[in-house]
């Protein structure tokens, strides 16, 4: 049987990937194309006719100052959150692979926040910020303390804190896998050559773990840019809409303000920005990978 003909290859492909291709097309490709089409209509989300309006939605998306403000806010939030999540995750990964007592327990413990859904987590932390911390601060300073969530920058800070708490454990797992993949031989060789602990981390472990960094950065960047659930339950844009991140602005635009077309166009812009940053980061990261 000839195995290099087009039809043979196609049959093989169908056999192994046919179903997944169909499903992927149904739930990702087709909705995406349909969504793209909707950005050229002034559909309100409900009515039967979807009047075609050309690029009007993109014009109003570019003119929507609220969107760009929320996008700018998302950049700041993401930049800080991504750095903190990865720094914290790396440090705890190092600690729980360094052979301290009960490290499996700690690994599980740090991972648990990730198992709680974003909505629930937001409500839990809302209580912590609004009640527990305010009560604590009021007792210490013996006056009425303001909740972190009541100030504009405080609300963003609170979002960052919660994101770090939520994602650090998950990223820790990937870094733990990275640490484990660094062969003992190399570390031992470095030790014999006179490397201190810090030196062997910086010059041996980290370069060999680039793949973990690439993965973690990609995951945190995309998640931070698209964050919605925690944003909704923790701040819901309060105070005065100053903590509404890009995804929330898009949602409100489409469903609360019933401007479906503009919302969809803004979602597409967000997707493109996110895809470009994510792709660029992976490309640059992959180039920096080294083999032992």
């Amino acid at each position, binding site marked *: 049987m000839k195995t290099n003909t087009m039809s043979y290859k196609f049959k093989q492909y169908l056999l192994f990937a046919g179903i997944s291709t169909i*499903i992927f097309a149904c739930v990702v490709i087709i909705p995406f194309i349909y969504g793209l089409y909707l950005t050229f209509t002034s559909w309100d989300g*409900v*009515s039967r006719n979807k009047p075609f309006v050309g690029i009007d939605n993109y014009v109003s998306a570019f003119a929507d100052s609220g969107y760009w403000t929320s996008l700018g806010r998302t950049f700041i939030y993401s930049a800080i959150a991504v750095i903190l999540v990865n720094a914290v995750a790396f440090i705890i990964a190092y600690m729980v692979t360094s052979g301290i007592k009960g490290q499996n327990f700690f690994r599980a413990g740090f991972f648990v926040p990730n198992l709680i859904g974003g909505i629930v987590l937001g409500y839990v932390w809302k209580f912590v910020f609004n009640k527990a911390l305010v009560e604590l601060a009021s007792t210490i300073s013996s006056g009425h303390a303001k909740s972190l*969530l*009541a100030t504009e920058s405080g609300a963003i800070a609170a979002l960052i804190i919660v994101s770090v708490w939520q994602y650090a454990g998950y990223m820790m797992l990937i870094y733990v896998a990275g640490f484990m993949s660094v062969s003992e031989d190399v570390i031992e060789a470095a030790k014999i050559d006179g490397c201190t602990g810090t030196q062997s981390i910086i010059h041996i472990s980290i370069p060999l773990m680039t793949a973990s960094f690439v993965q973690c950065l990609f995951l945190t960047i995309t998640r931070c840019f698209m964050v919605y659930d925690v944003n909704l339950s923790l701040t819901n844009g*309060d105070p005065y*809409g100053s903590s509404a991140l890009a995804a929330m602005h898009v949602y*409100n635009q489409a469903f*609360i*303000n019933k401007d479906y077309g503009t919302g969809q166009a803004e979602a597409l812009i967000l997707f493109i920005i996110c895809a470009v940053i994510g792709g660029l980061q992976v490309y640059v990261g992959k180039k920096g990978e080294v083999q032992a």
Partner: protein
Amino acid sequence: MKKKLLSLAVVAAMSASLVACGGSDGASGSSSNGSGTSITILNSKTEIQTQFEEMAEQYEEATGVHVEVYNADTDTTVASQVATKYASNDPYTLTMVDAKDIYSLADDYAYDLSNEDWVGHTTLGITVNDKLAGFPFCVEARGIIYNADAIEAITGEKFDPASVATLDDFKALLDKLVAGGMEKPVGVLSEYWSLGAHYFAEVYEQQPDPDAFVNSLLAGEEDLAGNQKFNELMDTFDTLIAYNYAKGSAANADREETSMMLAEGQIAFMFGGNWDWSVLNQYDFTENMGIMPVPENTSDDTNTKLVGGGSKYIFVDSSDATSDEQRQAALDFLNWLVNDAEGNAFLTEQCALVPAFDNIDASALDPLSLSVKSYADAGKLIPNYNYLPDDHMTVVGQEIMQKYLDEAMTRPELVTAVQDYFKTATPIAH
């Protein structure tokens, strides 16, 4: 070869099952058979979901019609949930939505209810393009909720809401309460729907001609700073801010906490509506409460009226996805609500709603609803204005009024912000 055939068969079987999944959708809408009709209803008053489900069981026992009650998702808007159902061609037989949604849905999806028996009993139905599309589910109104027990405990005399109709009198009472030991007698909800769609909306609703006023705002011709109603209502709002228990972090006030403080008498006043009873009665409440008009230094009588009217409207699906049999069952159900003693009891007793129909007895309602009913019966309700731009609630409610509530914005800044907003807002066609 045999193996290859087998694997092909597996692939075929799996893809067939996939197709089957997609195809079964269309049939589910018309599953009615001889044993009884089945209808679905979307309940967007989530606080009465339990009562609704119990009612559905009793209704099926009595009439043989199966009613499936769906609770609206609280994390999304009702409009988007309805949109999803229509997009998948699987609409609810009966859908409960806000007045505003009726206007956007009626043309395409609502069945004309003009020939129903209950039409003569209400003036609150919504007519769109000569078609009676919305069945008014209940009456709701807003104003200032007061806890008379808390007031009387300090003043020592019986509280008469009519005595504080003007802002001056209201202020005098607040000062008295403060002197009597209630440090901050007022609560203001910080939620954007309360600030934007309920309080600030009164600025439009109390105008002699709300439509003309909003249109001139949209045209950029209105000078808000010089508008009498705006200033009167904002003066009152300033007073509410000054006596707010959460002053300092007002934009972060918690609805549950504010409601609890009012129910238990730690504060005496809160801006809200009769729907707040379902929150207030979760705490150690007193029955001696009520709703009064927003106090204003005005001469136009608006300070003797609540603002409100029909709230939550039900429309019957007119699309082909609903069979004639189901539609008839849906119409029968609406009739049952109005003309059957059991249906009436469901509305007024189980759900504690103010009925929108004059033939329904409502003497057993909660204190806030009784207040609303007394104002409604006396013709002292200023109608809701249902044509504010869609993003009014998020922009004016959250970005502007919440900032003002938190004292991070002055009145002139608010005026400019609102006027600027209207210049770019998309008007609602009506």
